[in-house]
């Protein structure tokens, strides 16, 4: 049964006039948990005028005074209709009841993403969709679900990096509750750092970006986490093939103060001490963990506070001990000696994020969110040996230790306003400041030797300047207005002004954004948009997987910000209940895009990085088709992308100045995702993905090279960069889940099979010389062989989850 709490408050003292404009506002929440719902809709039945909740579950709708039936709806929840006599500004908090299957939501205006919003290339992904999608080792993964969206692809097969509309992996702004996260990967990128249990909603923007976002040129991934159950305590325990998970949430003060905590860790976190106790002399362990925590305080209908924290780490540890003793006799002299050697190697990397948010409702038309945040990513690598010798009671020891450290620290403050002056306008404006401190790398070594109690050597060598760091100040202002020109035309013009200051140089960027939507009465709609974006940071990495030594660096006085100009158009159809059809086309021109020069290796060092990259232009274009079924027992989508992405560096330093395909230029991508609920107990999820292979560079012939000293040798000759297209990848993943209601909560068994038909998809390719033999085994000679390495063949997994 629908629960509703109707709170009426007099917020305006204006005299009562016939047909005067009044505003209804409030929060829409889950009835069971009190969790606010992002993107939930309110529609006035007769005029179909509507609004949706913002990232904090708050909505506002201004109408002439009168009698109205308001339809409240949200995907996966039962609709609720409330009759309201709206005579003055009214606060109406509504609670919706969640359903077992994804249901269709009413048509609403001003959705922030998706087919009904004004923005092109935007999509909302509810947490339920993420949890249901079968993936590797049974670990639901936010970024891998995003990879199945049109225009988004993974870099390396099976890994979680995302490449959006021809852009690079560092061109995506991935935010956790509004705070940018730098390292989003665990285990070289096989998993992302986001725990599905802690995630409420994920929104992806890849086309006409809202003006409130900036700082990256290819995509915005806005991940919002649970506030915590305001009604009662609930939790989830899950044991999978790779990791264990625990999620708890509940009220501290019912309907006022709640908490939500999630923890995930590899089994080796728990079993590490056991392994260590068994393997005393040589011990190695790797694990990762994630901890999310959030406290929500509903002080009043006007003020809400959120305190969030995240800490995630990957750790690799290796320890080795050896010791011994003995005697040596030479002539009459006997020497007794003991020794102890200890070797320690450790690599730790990860993020720590903290944020505090204050929502304040000034009045029914003005909502503000103020955020202060702290974000730190660091990587520490240490290796050391300690040797102790005791010869006839005289002790000598030596210690050598090497430390490597890199990281980033951001301190940010942001204020966002939602202003709803009339039903036709929703104005968003605000500002953000981030102070970046980049420590690209520090390396030092300590050497100490003590003999007979006296220090013989005590040296500390700094291989890099220990005080070296780069500071960056990023300031931005934005304003956008989502307004309805007519019943069928909505426009969203916006402006984002950003400034980045580093090394005494200041870059300014004025970024116009505009989207327009034309709706028809037959379910067809059309959109067009333009967005300019600018980016001030880069990720230095040569590897095709995420490594801890990948380094983020800011632009410099010599390296200009990357900019992109994207034009997109789209056509959409949603007349059939529960179905959505869309086709979008885009053209993206990127300038000052960076590419590594020939012979460049970017691993663990930023030394002189400006000299090892070249600035050029990139072009990406494509067509994206998406069919989505959004409600019923069977939901999912079918996506097809036709895309082309290339680069050119006119100064000739790369590929002789000729245009060449981007590393992840994939012409065709198909993604199918089907989620079917047979009944209350059984569910099945199937995903199938196909993608044309990316490109790589292979030698085409052997050639002599002549050195200035007259020395001649053979070298492999490359005619063009990215001259070889890797074979296509495709795989089928299937997951079955069995749900059983218990006295308290539910038990779920999940069986997933990744890459069901064991397709040998290539993760890496390389070329070498191999021997040829005939059918009788006779040696025929050598020839060039192309090899592929497949990291992820068929992988079954089983997980057990208990909700309570």
């Amino acid at each position, binding site marked *: 049964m629908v629960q509703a709490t109707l709170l009426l408050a007099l917020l305006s003292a204006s005299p009562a006039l016939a047909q005067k404009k009044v505003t209804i506002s409030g929060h829409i929440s889950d009835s069971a948990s009190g969790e606010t719902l992002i993107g939930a809709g309110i529609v006035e039945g007769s005029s179909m005028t509507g609004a949706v909740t913002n990232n904090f579950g708050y909505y506002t709708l201004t109408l002439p005074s009168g009698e109205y039936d308001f339809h409240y709806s949200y995907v996966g929840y039962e609709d609720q209709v409330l009759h309201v006599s709206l005579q003055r500004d009214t606060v109406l908090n509504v609670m919706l009841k969640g359903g077992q299957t994804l249901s269709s939501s009413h048509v609403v205006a001003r959705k922030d993403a998706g087919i009904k919003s004004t923005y092109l290339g935007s999509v909302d992904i509810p947490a339920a969709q993420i949890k249901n999608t079968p993936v590797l080792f049974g670990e639901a993964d936010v970024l891998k679900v995003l990879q199945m969206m049109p225009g988004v692809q993974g870099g390396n097969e099976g890994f979680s990096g995302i490449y959006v509309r021809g852009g690079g992996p560092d061109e995506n702004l991935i935010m956790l509750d509004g705070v940018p996260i730098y390292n989003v990967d665990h285990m070289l990128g096989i998993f992302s750092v986001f725990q599905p249990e802690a995630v409420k909603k994920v929104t992806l923007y890849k086309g006409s970006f809202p003006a409130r976002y900036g700082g990256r040129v290819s995509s915005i991934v806005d991940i919002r986490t649970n506030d915590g159950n305001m009604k009662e305590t609930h939790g989830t325990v899950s044991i999978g093939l790779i990791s264990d998970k625990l999620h708890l949430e509940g009220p501290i003060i019912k309907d006022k103060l709640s908490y939500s905590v999630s923890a995930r860790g590899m089994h080796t976190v728990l079993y590490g001490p056991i392994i260590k106790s068994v393997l005393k002399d040589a011990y190695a362990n790797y694990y990762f963990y994630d901890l999310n925590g959030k406290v929500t305080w509903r002080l009043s209908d006007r003020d809400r506070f959120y305190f969030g924290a995240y800490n995630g780490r990957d750790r690799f540890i290796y320890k080795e001990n050896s010791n011994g003793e003995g005697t040596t006799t030479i002539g009459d002299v006997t020497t007794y000696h003991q020794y102890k050697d200890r070797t320690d190697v450790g690599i730790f990397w990860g993020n720590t994020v903290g944020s505090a948010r204050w929502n304040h409702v000034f009045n029914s038309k003005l909502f503000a969110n103020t955020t202060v945040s702290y974000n730190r990513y660091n990587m520490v690598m240490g290796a050391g040996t300690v040797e102790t010798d005791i010869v006839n009671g005289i002790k000598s020891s030596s210690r050598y230790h090497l430390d490597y450290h890199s990281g980033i620290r951001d301190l940010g403050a942001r204020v966002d306003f939602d202003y709803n002056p009339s039903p036709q306008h929703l104005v968003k404006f605000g500002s953000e400041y981030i102070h970046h401190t980049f420590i690209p790398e520090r390396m030092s070594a300590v050497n100490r030797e003590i003999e007979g109690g006296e220090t013989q050597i005590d040296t500390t060598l700094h291989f890099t300047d220990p005080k070296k760091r780069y500071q960056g100040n990023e300031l931005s202002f934005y304003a956008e207005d989502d307004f309805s020109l007519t019943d069928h035309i909505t426009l969203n013009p916006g402006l984002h002004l950003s400034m980045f200051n580093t090394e005494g140089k200041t870059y300014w960027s004025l970024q116009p954004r505009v989207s327009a939507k034309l709706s028809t009465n037959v379910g067809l709609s059309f959109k067009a948009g333009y967005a300019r974006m600018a980016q001030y940071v880069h990720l230095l990495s040569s590897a095709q997987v995420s490594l801890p030594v990948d380094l983020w660096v800011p632009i410099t006085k010599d390296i200009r910000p990357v900019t992109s100009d994207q034009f997109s158009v789209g056509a959409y159809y949603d007349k059939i209940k529960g179905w959505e059809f869309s086709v979008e086309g885009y053209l993206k021109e990127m300038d000052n895009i960076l590419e590594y020069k*020939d012979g460049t*290796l970017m691993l663990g060092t930023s030394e002189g990085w400006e000299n090892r990259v070249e600035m050029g232009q990139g072009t990406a274009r494509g067509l994206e088709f998406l069919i989505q079924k959004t409600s019923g027992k069977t939901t999912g989508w079918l996506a097809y992308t036709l895309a082309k992405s290339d680069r050119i560096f006119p100064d000739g330093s790369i590929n002789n100045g000729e245009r060449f395909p981007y590393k992840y230029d994939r012409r065709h991508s198909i993604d199918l995702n089907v989620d079917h609920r047979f009944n209350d107990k059984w569910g099945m999820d199937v995903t199938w993905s196909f993608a044309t292979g990316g490109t790589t560079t292979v030698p085409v012939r052997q050639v*002599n090279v002549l050195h200035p000293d007259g020395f001649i040798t053979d*070298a492999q000759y490359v005619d063009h960069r990215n001259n070889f297209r890797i074979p296509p990848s495709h795989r089928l993943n299937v997951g079955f889940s069995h749900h059983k209601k218990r006295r308290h909560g539910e038990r779920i068994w999940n069986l997933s099979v990744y890459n069901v038909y064991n397709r040998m998809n290539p993760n890496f390719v390389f070329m070498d010389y191999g021997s040829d033999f005939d059918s009788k085994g006779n040696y025929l000679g050598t020839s060039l062989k192309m*090899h592929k390495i497949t990291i992820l063949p068929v992988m079954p997994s089983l997980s057990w989850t208990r909700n309570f």
Partner: protein
Amino acid sequence: MIVFAACENTIKYEYDKNDGKITVLGQLSTADTTHVIYLSMSYPDRTAPLPGAKVECFVNGERYLAEEVPVDQDDTYHSHFYTEYVFNAGFRPGDKVRIEASAGGQNAWTESIVPDPGAIIALDTTTVVKPIVEGSESYDQEYVELKVRLSDVKGSESYFTLDPEMSTVETLTSGRGEVTDVIVNGPSHVDFEIFHDLILEDGYSSGLGDLFEDLMPVNSMHCFSDRAFQDSEATVKMYVTSDHFRAGSGYNYWYYTRYFEIAAKVEVERTLHISLKTFDRDFYNYLRALNNFRCYGYDVEPIIEPTMLPNNVNGGMGMVSISAESRLDLKLPKETFIRGESDPIYT
């Protein structure tokens, strides 16, 4: 688990084993009159020498025919890779030089204009001590600092190499005061270091104490551009270990005193030559590619952005460069070793 699951397979890759392309290599200089052109055939999986080819050089239209150098039967290494062709000609700045090579039905040619040379205006030397860090060890090393003042070629984008060379004249005198032998060595290249000289590093790591220095190429070809001193002058610093400048130091001392078995006195006259070669952008990019090869090897590695060799040969492959060379010579003090004396005499 993933490590155990990973597997390797072969991908179908088709190529024509007999798809050969003629390769022409040469590094010509205005300082030389005898020049060598190296010919070979490039195949997808091998290279092969190219005997019996016709190689011609045209200097402003005037033809010079190159002769094939017979293969030294003992030099099995070289004979497997390439064939040498030699011709005699002199080049001056502004000359149009064309090299044509034809063999096996293929015709390849390259044409370029001899560039104007940059100039070495001045050379100063001084002795300095630099701390050297190698792993966890550090020590002091004495160097002779060569401070070279360069002048760019006005009105053009120019590329250079700067190399120190040493030539030696050893005069052996018997106990009766008769000169018994005069031995001339060099000029030969002298190794030098760069300590964070932005022009000479040319964007590369200096290779001295840098983090992960083994992973980064250094400017081992000593090529650099005039970006930092276009149409003007600049001073660069090279550091040569001081033992190169004293025949009487360390190993060198024992090298010369071995002559005391046949001579009573050995006079050593050494001349330091600083050579500045000026060439075009293609050859500059070629040298940068060689820097990468020296660091990472000559095969394409998946993790490293591939090195692409520039070509300036039409109808084939390869790189034929022509450098305009200017030199500055510095005579070092004469050293005299006398049998029975422990130290050389400097004059």
